[in-house]
């Protein structure tokens, strides 16, 4: 392959001149009839960082991704990707982005390799280059063994990885992943996290949407929480968790007479006093980010005080908790999954 001409001028924009954030969104609005999917969204994503867009079903996450990937025209506001305007320079934006949508957009009848080679050809890579790139991505996403099987024989996790690989064929500078782990079982989810983490370590700017606080926590440098088309909070995962008081150690004391002793025993775990629910015989202590070490400490203290407990658990704050503390209402008016539970499937990471 002869090296392609390197040019900085893309659709009238000199990309070399752009030193601002990889993504700039200002006052973005979009309605579908009466449904205001985006009501003035602002955010920025510095180059080489990961933004987690956290929100329940129907919050407007997909709409935002679709606007940023030129699939949807916004009603108002501005969106720039590497300085290129998504409305006025869509082709320039398309040249530097990758998208993996909410469902795996793969051709199931074709093999993993064929899927990737076709995408390469559609990016106008010469045949040999498309082949090399496909092999490279299959290797990297642990799909080499299955590469020549029709994609419909792949597990859900493998299909998602193939879909992600497809979005990376042209080495996009900015990558958009819309709920990359929704529908995966816990193991595949963690496998996907590893893949994504590995990816961003190479300097790609990533915008990822999710309904799970723990996922945003795992992957994102910065998180914005959106609800009904508005950004209602932003910050690091730690900041969000602090906002809701962090992790909570919870347990039940079957013997009502010992409830106060138990509260006393675990009081040292936190600055905040343990909350005691006398009716349920339950005690809850906010332990900040201390997590499992707080559990061990709690067990030791209670044991030392000779208190028998039932069902001692560590509860990590979920999207629901964040919502409760930010808006006073739960994340859901109805149909979405509780944010701390994940859909199950029979899928496994191969």
């Amino acid at each position, binding site marked *: *392959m002869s*090296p*392609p*001409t*390197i*040019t900085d*001028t*893309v*659709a*009238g924009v000199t*990309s070399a001149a752009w030193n601002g954030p*990889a993504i700039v969104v200002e006052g973005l609005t979009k309605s579908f009839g009466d449904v205001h999917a985006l009501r003035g969204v602002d955010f920025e994503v510095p*180059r*080489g960082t990961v933004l987690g867009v956290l929100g329940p079903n129907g919050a407007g996450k997909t709409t935002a991704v*679709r606007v940023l*990937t*030129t*699939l*949807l*025209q916004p009603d108002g506001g501005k969106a720039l990707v*590497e300085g290129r305007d998504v409305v006025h320079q869509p*082709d320039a934006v*398309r*040249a*530097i*982005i*990758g*998208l993996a*949508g*909410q*469902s*795996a*957009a*793969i*051709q199931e*009848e*074709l093999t993993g390799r*064929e899927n990737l080679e*076709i*995408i390469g050809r*559609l*990016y*106008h*890579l010469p045949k040999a*280059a498309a082949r*090399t*790139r496909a092999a*490279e991505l299959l290797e990297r996403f642990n799909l080499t063994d299955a590469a020549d099987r*029709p994609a419909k024989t792949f597990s859900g996790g493998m299909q998602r990885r193939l879909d992600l690989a*497809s*979005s990376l064929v*042209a*080495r*996009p*500078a*900015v990558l958009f992943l819309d709920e990359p782990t929704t529908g995966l079982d816990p193991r595949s989810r963690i496998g996907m996290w590893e893949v994504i983490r590995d990816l961003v370590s*190479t*300097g*790609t*700017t990533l915008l990822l949407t999710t309904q799970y606080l723990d996922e945003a926590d795992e992957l994102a440098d910065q998180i914005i929480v959106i609800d009904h088309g508005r950004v209602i909070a932003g910050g690091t995962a730690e900041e969000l968790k602090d906002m809701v008081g962090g992790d909570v150690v919870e347990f039940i004391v079957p013997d009502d007479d010992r409830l106060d002793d138990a509260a006393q025993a675990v009081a040292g775990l936190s600055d905040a006093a343990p909350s005691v629910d006398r009716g349920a015989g339950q005690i809850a202590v906010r332990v900040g980010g201390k997590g499992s070490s707080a559990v061990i400490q709690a067990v030791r203290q209670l044991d030392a005080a000779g208190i028998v407990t039932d069902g001692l658990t560590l509860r990590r704050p979920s999207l629901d908790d964040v919502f409760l503390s930010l808006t006073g209402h739960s994340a859901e008016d109805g149909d979405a999954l509780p944010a701390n539970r994940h859909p199950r499937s029979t899928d496994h990471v191969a």
Partner: protein
Amino acid sequence: MSLSTTASERRPSAAHELLGYHPPGGNQRLRWALADALTLTRRDMLVWLRVPSFIVFTIVQPVMFVLLFRYVFGGAIKVDVKGGYVNFLMPGIIGQSAAFASFGTAIALAREMQKGIIDRFRSMPMARSAVLVGRLLADTVRLTATVVVLAAVGYAVGFRFENGVLPAIAMLALGVALGVSICCVAGWIGLLVRDEESVGSVGLIWLFPLTFVSSAFVQVQSMPGWLQAFANNQPVTIVMDEMRALALGGPLVTHGWESALWLVGITAVFGYLAVKAYRRP
């Protein structure tokens, strides 16, 4: 620059270097649009080779129609055509099969929309026409296979071209062209409806009256008067009469330009609408 090195992965802005992306000039744009379309044509054909039902819909079903009409209904249908009903039937059934092949187009495009495959394409620097043009090119190959097999089966059951080789080829080509134009309409519907099941069940229901209330299987004079008015003036009859004239001999000029106009018109209008539907968010 070697594509196999991962060094460029570390450079976040490597994408347009890799692609040498710059706004393509007119010529380049056209070449890319064609290249994209051909890539997708190859993809569509590769997909068909992997789907066992493909051969059923493309070949087995049309052949069964030929046999049914030739041997089951044929005896009851009177026509005044040299060579009898089988000669009348074959041009009609070739056109009808070509038109029904458009189910494949509509369903495939609706599925690609539904699964987000087209969203990915739309997020790539690709020609907007590529998905449709690529599929129509693949459909042309598929239609040609159907039409040629049907002509051969027709020969086995008594059909004869009575008008020489070139008109015979022109007749088959006209059948393919009819199929392609209907594929444009079906493609538009598939891209608009975006739901495989609705498209397959109701999206193409109009194909039944369009092909059956025509001169495909019976002479229009045998229909009630009010139906004749429709049957005589709709494009399928016009094209089929032309195909029949090409196959069996007869006055070519009566419908020649009309057929061409209809086919070009339908292809242009619905091709345009389909590309618009593809762009619609």
